[in-house]
């Protein structure tokens, strides 16, 4: 048991240190760069090539087609390295390169090409993808359609698709 202020000081300082450990490390495993998670993305086939982001930095060779001031990146990034913004059904933003180059999505695109009908007549579907999470960007410009204005978004995950399936 405690026997005096000196021992009490030790206990209290230990309690403070232990408290800091609880707060820092007691909240479950933190995200690491090799993590692969399953993510659902809500899409229509017209999203292919129609969604843009604006970001000044490049992340592991991946970059948006535009800078944060809206100017196009030159030379434009290759299709498989070009980030585009997508939303999960619960409104989380992701920046993903080459999503429609995934075989399941490419096949889905071929089944309902957006040229044949207006956007609002296209059927919305869910892409269920295994994604490698790379990093989170705190601020990014996004444009959901070439004719739409740019908007600001925050806390967007940059993620690389490993494999995808489609749910209609």
């Amino acid at each position, binding site marked *: 048991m*405690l026997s005096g202020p000196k021992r009490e000081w030790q206990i209290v300082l230990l309690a403070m240190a232990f408290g800091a450990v609880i707060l820092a490390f007691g909240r479950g495993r933190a995200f690491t760069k090799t993590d692969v998670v399953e993510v659902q993305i809500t899409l229509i086939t017209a999203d292919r090539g129609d969604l843009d982001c604006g970001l000044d930095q490049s992340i592991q060779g991946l970059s948006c087609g535009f800078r944060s001031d809206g100017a196009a990146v030159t030379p434009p990034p290759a299709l498989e390295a070009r980030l585009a913004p997508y939303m999960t059904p619960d409104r989380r933003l992701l920046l993903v390169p080459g999503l429609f180059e995934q075989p399941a999505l490419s096949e889905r695109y071929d089944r309902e090409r957006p040229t044949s009908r207006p956007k609002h007549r296209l059927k919305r579907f869910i892409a269920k993808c295994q994604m490698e999470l790379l990093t989170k960007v705190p601020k990014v410009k996004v444009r959901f359609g070439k004719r739409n204005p740019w908007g600001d978004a925050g806390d967007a995950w940059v993620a690389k698709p490993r494999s995808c399936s489609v749910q209609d």
Partner: protein
Amino acid sequence: MKPTAAGQSAVAPAGTLSPPGAPPRFPALETDGPLIALLLCMVAVGIALRAYQLDEPHTLKWDEHHYVETARSYLAHKYAWNDHPPLSKLIIAGFMWALGDGPLAWRLPSFLFGVVNIGLVGALTAHVFRSRRAGLIAAAFVAMDGFFIAYSRTALLDGMIVAFSLASMLCVLRGRTVRAVLLAGLFSGCALSFKLNGAVFVFASFLACLASKPLRKYSPLLLLCALFVFYAQCAVALVNVGRSGSIAAVIEENRAMVKNHLGYTVVHPMSSKWYTWFVPTRPIFLRRDADIDGTVRALLTLGNPLLWWAAIFAVWSAAEELIKPGLARLWSDLRSGSSTRRIGLFFLLACYAGPILFWVPALRDAYIYHYLPSYAFALPLLAGLIARLYATRRPLALAFVVLAFEISLVYAPLAAELPISQSALNARLLPGWR
């Protein structure tokens, strides 16, 4: 280990009367240094947890939309239907006017009242127990408790009601002049002007005023002042939107509001009966956002379980202490009007029981957060008990405070919306709490 001289004198033993007007004795730093350091650390961490990313999320949480939307209407001078009296929305509107319509302005009033609550609980406890040690313990408990932190981080009303009810009781228990009565009327009137269940504190303050020898003769002033405040804030809200601020208009507005409350028939899935609050069986997630990487940001109306259950024991213990010498003695204490510890205990108990009793016959559904004002008056009782324990069994009391600190930190991510994994979140919750 033998208790120190400072420890022995810090809190009057059970059943004895403190000399009226005796100055509270502060624990000596050289003997109580570790305890003081820990308690101050708890207060500092509690304030930091309240402030952490206060402006996140940018969207409205739980019932915030009720109050923020009404505040927006007030800023636009448009009439808005009020589910509760308008004072809280007027305050939020004031912050939105000064800082802009954003999450910081919505939640800053709750944050400020939440910080003030720490000091008010400390001052009230120090006064009732004639012990600044007990006051500091109570302040630290409130600072670190998740229930209070949650209500300091949302644009909801209950944390603000707590502040006004504590301020009112502090004025009337400590005061000796008419100014204290007027301030108690002002503060209890504000509590009533947030939600109608604040009426409990107008009544409790009035009774405490009656029990105080120097204040007794001013008691009607307290009621008048509270009623004036209630009228004034209703009238200001009505005049602001271009309506009449007459007494008749204010009565009509409140009559419609009461009728609306009495007409509630829908039972919300997160509502809970008053007798379940002691466990509790149904804390409410004010926010629960899952991120893509599996982390969750959660805000749960759950206090530190150790403090929660120990506070109920403290309530029981205080009630026993009051009743043991006999009800006649209690009545005599109340009638004599001297400011004794027993009178303080009685009114802490009354303020604990009042908000619960309000919901016993209630026809509409109640929620766990209706227990928040009661909890604010239970923690001083617990702090008084721990301070007394510190004087006699010091290691045990210190161990309790250390344990309360650690458990609070375990639950801190659920009160301060720190990122936490789903499994770590679930590990903190009983099955019924998930």
